[in-house]
């Protein structure tokens, strides 16, 4: 457990760690300075974005935001959000952004209305940060908790993403709320949030096994102290009774309620928008050919395999340069990914440190995914402040700095190759881009190893 009075890790790893202690301490002493400055940071970015959009042909606003708001416009005219090409989200997102589709005729007011979604996403950031603080404050004084929450709240990358109009910030608040509800033993709320999150973005389903595994009688004991049918402790009984003992009321409640929430939401959306809802929100992820370059180690292989399966390149059996048998690796990609993120990591660490386990799960899911873009990094960034206080990265600053440097450098290497391809038109697919993505993958695996070891050595929180 971290010593709250320890000066180590006073702020985010990107910051100078030894400023005059007094200013830092005062800043985090009360909530207002942190939240006001977080809000001001986002407001500044938002206004700057409006200015850039108005005066520059290069836009600050994310293309996805135009997709959301177009979809909201279709909805406001009584249409389907899926009338907008490349809208691949739940209709709820378009509903949330309905105010952006309103036109008053006053340019100033319309611009403000159009920014409603960005304000919403930025507000979600702040709430997510506040939830982080609450979770952190369970094991440390509030000022220290705020210090760690600042990694999220004052992070310019997070503020940029939400004010550019990317909806990933909404996921942040959902995951933070889910974790907070679980740690507070509020099973119904957790189940509703879990079902909703999975409906919203699919990937949070990986948290279900970790939460279920964590929710043993001991963890939930504080609220309900009903003894099992057998009066002996679980560890001394047979396999069968242990299996029966695993099924607790809370676990059933979480499972059934979250599944019901997920199913109900999907049925409602299907009833309203029909097959396009299923196609674009879910089936798209099964059928898509993710050929365009991204960080995933599978990327080059997917490009090759998609061309082969479309008969776009001939497979010459006599050609030694081609090994058809190795072409199917990408079809088993989900195996290591799901085995790690849904089975092995929860099993190994969920009961010891749930937040760190969820971070490791997300990290594994993103690292081993068939597609990986930088917006996915936000998925684990929300959980980072909860893990850092007890992490080896802060306890051994040298390790922490090395990790950060490697993560940044590996990305820079890949981005440099990506730039050559995308903007200079150089054929760097092999070996450059492929090699860079494997290096980044390797760095991520090492980071994951450290996180897993830390999570596994954690004390029940």
């Amino acid at each position, binding site marked *: 457990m971290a010593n709250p009075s320890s000066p180590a890790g006073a702020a985010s790893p990107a910051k100078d760690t030894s400023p005059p202690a007094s200013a830092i301490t005062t800043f985090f002493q009360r909530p207002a300075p942190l939240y006001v400055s977080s809000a001001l940071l986002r407001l500044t970015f938002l206004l700057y974005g409006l200015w850039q959009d108005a005066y520059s042909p290069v836009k600050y606003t994310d293309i996805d935001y135009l997709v959301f708001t177009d979809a909201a416009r279709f909805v406001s005219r009584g249409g389907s959000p899926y009338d907008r090409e490349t809208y691949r989200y739940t209709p709820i997102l378009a509903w949330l952004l309905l105010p952006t589709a309103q036109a008053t005729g006053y340019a100033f007011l319309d611009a403000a209305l159009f920014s409603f979604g960005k304000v919403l996403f930025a507000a979600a950031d702040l709430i997510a940060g506040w939830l982080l603080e609450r979770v952190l404050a369970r094991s440390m004084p509030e000022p220290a908790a705020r210090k760690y929450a600042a990694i999220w709240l004052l992070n310019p990358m997070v503020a940029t993403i939400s004010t550019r109009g990317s909806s990933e910030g909404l996921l942040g608040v959902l995951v933070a709320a889910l974790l907070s509800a679980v740690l507070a033993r509020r099973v119904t709320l957790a189940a509703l949030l879990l079902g909703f999150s999975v409906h919203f973005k699919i990937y949070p389903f990986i948290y279900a096994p970790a939460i279920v595994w964590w929710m043993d009688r001991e963890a939930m004991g504080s609220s309900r102290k009903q003894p099992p049918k057998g009066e002996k402790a679980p560890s001394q009984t047979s396999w069968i009774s242990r299996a029966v003992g695993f099924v607790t009321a809370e676990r059933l409640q979480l499972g059934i309620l979250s599944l019901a929430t997920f199913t109900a939401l999907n049925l409602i959306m299907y009833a309203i928008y029909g097959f396009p809802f299923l196609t674009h929100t879910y089936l798209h992820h099964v059928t*898509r050919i993710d*050929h365009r370059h991204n960080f995933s180690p599978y990327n080059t292989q997917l490009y090759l395999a998609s*061309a082969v399966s479309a008969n776009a390149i001939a497979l010459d059996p006599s050609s030694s*340069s081609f090994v058809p048998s190795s072409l199917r690796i990408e079809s088993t990609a989900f195996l290591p990914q799901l085995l790690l993120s849904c089975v092995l*990591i929860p099993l190994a660490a969920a009961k010891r440190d749930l937040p760190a386990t969820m971070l490791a799960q997300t990290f594994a899911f993103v690292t081993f995914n068939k597609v990986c873009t930088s917006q996915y990094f936000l998925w684990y960034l929300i959980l980072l402040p909860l893990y850092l206080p007890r992490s080896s990265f802060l306890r051994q600053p040298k390790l922490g700095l090395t990790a950060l440097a490697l993560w940044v450098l590996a990305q820079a290497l890949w981005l440099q190759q990506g730039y050559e*391809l995308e903007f*200079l038109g150089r054929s760097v697919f092999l*070996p450059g881009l492929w090699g860079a993505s494997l290096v980044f993958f390797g760095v991520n*695996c090492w980071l994951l190893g450290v996180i897993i070891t830390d999570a596994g050595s954690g004390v029940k929180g």
Partner: protein
Amino acid sequence: MRERITYIQKLGDGLDPSTVRVDAGAIRAPDVHAVREDRLTLTLDELPEELRTLLGDTQDLHIRWVSTDAYETVSPLLARLPPGLHVFFTPGDGNGSVASGRLCSVLGEAFRDIACTTLEESFTPLPRDRFSHAAAYQYFQQLDSLQGFIGHAKDRLCGRADKACAARLDGLSRAASLDISYESQEGVLRVTALWPYQRQPIDASSRPGVRTEVGILSADKPKTLEPHELGVAGLLTVLGQDPKPSATMFSFAARHRDAESTFSARFLAPTGLHPTLQLRISSAALPAEAEHGGQECSPYAYLTLPRTIFADKYQLSDPLFLASKNLAALRHTTQPVDLEAPEYAVSSWGSAILLELAPPSSPSSRSSEWTAEVPLHLRYLAPSSGGYSTVSVPYPAVFWACQPLQDDELTPGPFEKKALGYDGLFEDGTVFWHVAPQPAGAGGQGLLSQVRVPVLDVDRAGWVGAGTGLAVAAGFAFVAWKLAGVLFGKKEEVGEKKTQ
């Protein structure tokens, strides 16, 4: 079967009638500088069986081929299209299923190397709600020569010993354009070939059973000519019927006219995966008669983009972005255009877009050269040997479109061309002032802009599958080892799982 052969010279170039010799169904005269247009008109029962069946179930079919070589032409034969093979098709009133099913196979037989599979897969639907005179389906592909068509036509049309027939068809290899048009309202098939403006002999003869009319004309500007009209004057002869040419002079409203400027197109370096096609236009000024009566005229570029490359309509919707490229608006795009799929996962031919350009506004700069940039996006192409592929994008058709005035009557002239793809996107009666395309340099590619596309190098790809598998396996093993350390290594903790 009827035939019309027309030579058209420039304004002021006349031919002395006394030098023209007409006898025994043939006409001869000294060389002239002219454009030559041959038009063959056939009734349905003069057509081969498979074509008759196809057209019997067709409302409109226009097959237009344009050479990739730059060519000069003369008013009124000015209607221009991007180089390549264009097909505009409207199925018959029935359900058009016969024609729809056969169209691609007939095209493939006639032109060889046609990538069209079926109407549904390869063609793109056109908006019919905009203006009723537009065709329903569109197809385009690059086709650099008519050799396939010439071979096929010789097999089907010429007798074994008919040297004249074969020579006539061989002449198509030098043609600038070929149009095969059928409109069910008229019930005839028109085949029209155009040879560019050049010095050539006047030499034509009639064939038995074919009424052949030969016109030797030049542009004319009589005093009575209205601003929206074109005049021609010259000699007309019906071979085997008229003993000597008869003088003629007529005027008509022309929908396609000469903007008296030129343009070239090229990709800006570096091209990357998002190349920009730059149009360099020699002048933003229009001939005086274009804006008579206060008509509004704007410049446009009509692009037919093969499926390897596309324009993003969402990117082209922001006024500031458009203005920075000297564009005014995206007026039309084929729908839908997949913004993500690789080339090999797209079945339609590609997409056509109509862009309104924004010329320099100050009067002083109107006669100087200006540019407009068209931002485009490449799809991923299939891996190939060497790591690069080349994509050729045909030159667009660049023209000024002037809104029709109510008092200008536009009865179609004898050289009228309709269904060009872009004309259906404008109000009926719009006049198009064409900017002539010019090759962008000594590249020798004619009216094509080429861009080198990076692709996966197949020669190096042998290890990708195994290498990826190995890397993932190693990463997984490392993480699993760390997990094992957590699961089995530390007993001093609560000791959850120590079984097995």
